[in-house]
């Protein structure tokens, strides 16, 4: 477990501390563990601690989400038996969660990209 201060990557996900939630972020009610990032192969990045709220970005951008860690800390655990990314500990505060993408060649769209599947 590694406690992070400002910014760290866990495989195809980055966690970045921000000052506050964007004013119109939409809370996503979750029962059970919070799946911070779904993995195509079922190897989710998830938080099992209580006292954490998950928010969608204003524009429903699936690549960016937010976490409000209201308790002392929240551990982000990577669920995979092998090549497991080490657990990251987020302290109290607001965190931005960013998924990783890669560029794709597309003659019709120079800015085309797809989500990275780790």
């Amino acid at each position, binding site marked *: 477990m590694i406690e992070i201060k400002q910014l760290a990557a866990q495989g195809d996900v980055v966690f970045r501390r921000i000052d506050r939630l964007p004013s119109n972020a939409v809370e996503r009610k979750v029962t059970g563990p919070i799946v911070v990032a779904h993995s*195509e192969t079922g190897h989710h990045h998830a938080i099992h601690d209580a006292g954490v709220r998950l928010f969608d970005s204003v524009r429903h951008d699936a690549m960016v989400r937010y976490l409000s860690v209201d308790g002392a800390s929240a551990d982000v655990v990577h669920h995979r038996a092998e090549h497991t990314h080490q657990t990251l500990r987020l302290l109290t505060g607001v965190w931005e969660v960013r998924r990783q993408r890669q560029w794709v060649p*597309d003659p019709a769209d120079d800015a085309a990209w797809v989500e990275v599947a780790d």
Partner: protein
Amino acid sequence: MPLTALTPEQRASLSVWRSYWLRTLARTSPADRKNAERAVRMVHDAWHDPLPRLRWVDSPRGVDPTSWTNIGQSLLVRRLPTAAQAHGEVISGPVWVSVQLALARAAVGPRLWAPGPLDWLVPLSTYGFFRVALGVPYPEHISRTLDSWLVAVRAFGGLWRQEETCVLCERPIDIHLDADGRPHHESGAAVRFRDGFDMYFWHGTRMPPEWIATPHLLTPDLVLTTGNAAQRIAGVELIGWPRVLEVVKAFTIDQDADPQIGELLEVDLPVDGPTRLLRVLCGTGRVFWLRVPRHIQTARAANAWTYGLRPEEYRPEIRT
């Protein structure tokens, strides 16, 4: 008053509907021919289109990609989206768009094997969410038609038009999907039909069977020069960049001292031209290769771009 916002509970039910839709479209039991035909007739009647002759097939075997016209071009694509949103009187534009975006991939995914554009499945799935999952009241003349269309899409496998015939296709007997609901199988056929016809897919991209079945025989030259852009991308994923670089020379644009920031390379690919790649070490000790835009100049900027950050913002304390 149109629906102008979703409550958190309603938003939560979106993922339930998405899972339901994926399961429904991926069913492998025989088609419910009676309901499927009834719905097709009803939609044609409701929209005053002459009813074509209906014909059932077991698979899309032998369908010439140039010979069909998508039945939706005349009926569904044009009429379904506005009908389903009921011209904004039932659902406000922004709410409709946000739900449609959330459902876009899953709405189409399991049917990517069917010939023809499948765009009409997106507004239909969006309509189903509002109508079935949330119970939003629609005017009867709209819901009657679209409800039967919801029944139909669950009843058949595929639908397309060949000349004056409306072809209805049985469901597959076996289908493998990735987490986005797209046909995908790493070593065999992703979709098999009752008549023995099968199709190979890599994350929704139709692939030549031998690419998937015998990947060790697949050469970088073949992958890089194949005419279909989606197959070129999928083929590189299949064989991996290290094998590609055995035949294509790579130039280092920038190399960071930290292997977890990595190296920015440029390769000149036969069809795609100059392509920039980030080669980066992950915390688990594996090497990742990611394509980045051509304007990227440093390995750090490449990393930052992959997470949607500016280069100066990407200073990770750790990469696990």
